[in-house]
């Protein structure tokens, strides 16, 4: 089977998987007790979006480290692609979190430590692109933004794991609890839907990421041809 056929098959599989996740989120998994109405169903979309935002940050770090070692412009394109998707998914996680907060506590924004964490993640992504825009020279842009991405990654464990656990939070308990142990107190159908959604969103991220990197590869090849 050619690469194109495998790719097409994987795209169809991803599409079907996400359709099933959406159907399971609304019709198969039960609504969680202790939440207003059907509001808990947002967890099947909000948690994977936040997970992908953090995953994108990690991919951005790996690509940035690779760039500083190899100086390959494609690694810089990989880092930028991951950051672009990270920005979109952290924005989506913020919006879905705000909608949930409004339903539960009648307020879109409560200055909760987790809200602050995702807002700072958004600011870091925005600052990363502000830096890229401010450097016209491509090589310098790649090096400086890689350095900033690595520096910003240092703050991430504090944002994601330390600050939300130091301060009192309205946010429902996370799957990985304050003690670092996995918490599996959800209904099995909810848990299955959540994990299926995490897999689906991770697949969606890698599909979009691959598309962006392929575009960058074409652009770089054309640039190389023009310079030759």
């Amino acid at each position, binding site marked *: 089977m050619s690469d194109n056929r495998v790719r097409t098959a994987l795209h169809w599989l991803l599409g079907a998987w996400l359709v099933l996740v959406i159907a399971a989120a609304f019709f198969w998994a039960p609504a969680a007790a202790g939440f207003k109405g059907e509001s808990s169903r947002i967890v099947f979309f909000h948690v994977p979006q936040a997970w992908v935002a953090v995953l994108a940050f990690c991919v951005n770090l790996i690509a940035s480290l690779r760039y500083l070692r190899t100086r390959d412009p494609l690694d810089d394109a990989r880092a930028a692609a991951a950051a672009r998707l990270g920005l979109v998914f952290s924005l989506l996680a913020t919006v879905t979190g705000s909608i949930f907060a409004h339903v539960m506590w009648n307020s879109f924004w409560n200055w909760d430590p987790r809200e602050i964490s995702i807002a700072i993640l958004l600011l870091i992504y925005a600052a990363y692109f502000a830096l890229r825009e401010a450097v016209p020279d491509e090589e310098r842009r790649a090096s400086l933004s890689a350095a900033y991405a690595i520096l910003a990654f240092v703050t991430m464990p504090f944002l994601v794991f330390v600050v939300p656990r*130091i301060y009192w939070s309205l946010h429902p308990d996370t799957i990985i609890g304050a003690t670092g142990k996995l918490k599996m107190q959800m209904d099995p159908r909810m848990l299955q839907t959540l994990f299926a959604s995490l897999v689906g969103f991770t697949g969606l991220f890698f599909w979009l990421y691959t598309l962006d990197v392929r575009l960058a590869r074409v652009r770089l090849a054309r640039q190389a041809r023009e310079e030759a």
Partner: protein
Amino acid sequence: MRASSLLSESLAVLGKELTSEVRSRVALNAIGLFGITTLVVVAYQIGPYQIQEKDRPYLLSALLWVILFFAATSGLARVFVKEEDAHTAKTLRLAARPLAVFAGKYLFNLILLAALFTLIVPLYCALMGYEVRGLAGLALVLAAGAVALSASSTIVAAIISRASGSTTLFAILSVPLVLPLLVMLIQGTRAAAGSVELAAVLPALQGIVSLGGALLIVSVFLFPVVWHE
């Protein structure tokens, strides 16, 4: 032998910065005047009596760090921007190793921050009626904060000096990096103000030292990349 020459190079860079600052006093004037102006505005408009008793620990510690951070932002970026503006960066690259340049500039920023804290914190306490019960705890929080803020400011200053629109970019790049640090500094200051026990500031201090230490170590490794680009 190598370590001692690195130390002497770092001290030479620090000496150059101090001499240049004594001549021009641009950074010192910028952060000092920015700090005092902001403090006067805050003290005039809010003062010691406008805040309710229950809100005082929260508001006073937060306001103090808002003044300190934004005053610092106005001067700390200059360490590398002035080298690019004066076209002396290339000479400095030839004259000293990257680590020595970073160490010298880092120490200079640390001294600037120490001067700012020494000037603003007592004035703030006096003008805002801020009673700090744990002076030793506050001194520790300020010292750890200066070490961490100086690390992040020095590396961000190096990054932005290589980009266009430097001064505005400094705040854009710095704020997301130091926000978790500022949150812990505010919490530590609040704890120091409320208790004479050093144990009260320890949780915040652990976070500040960890984040500051991580930022400093990563900055040391990243600086040659930024400096030689």
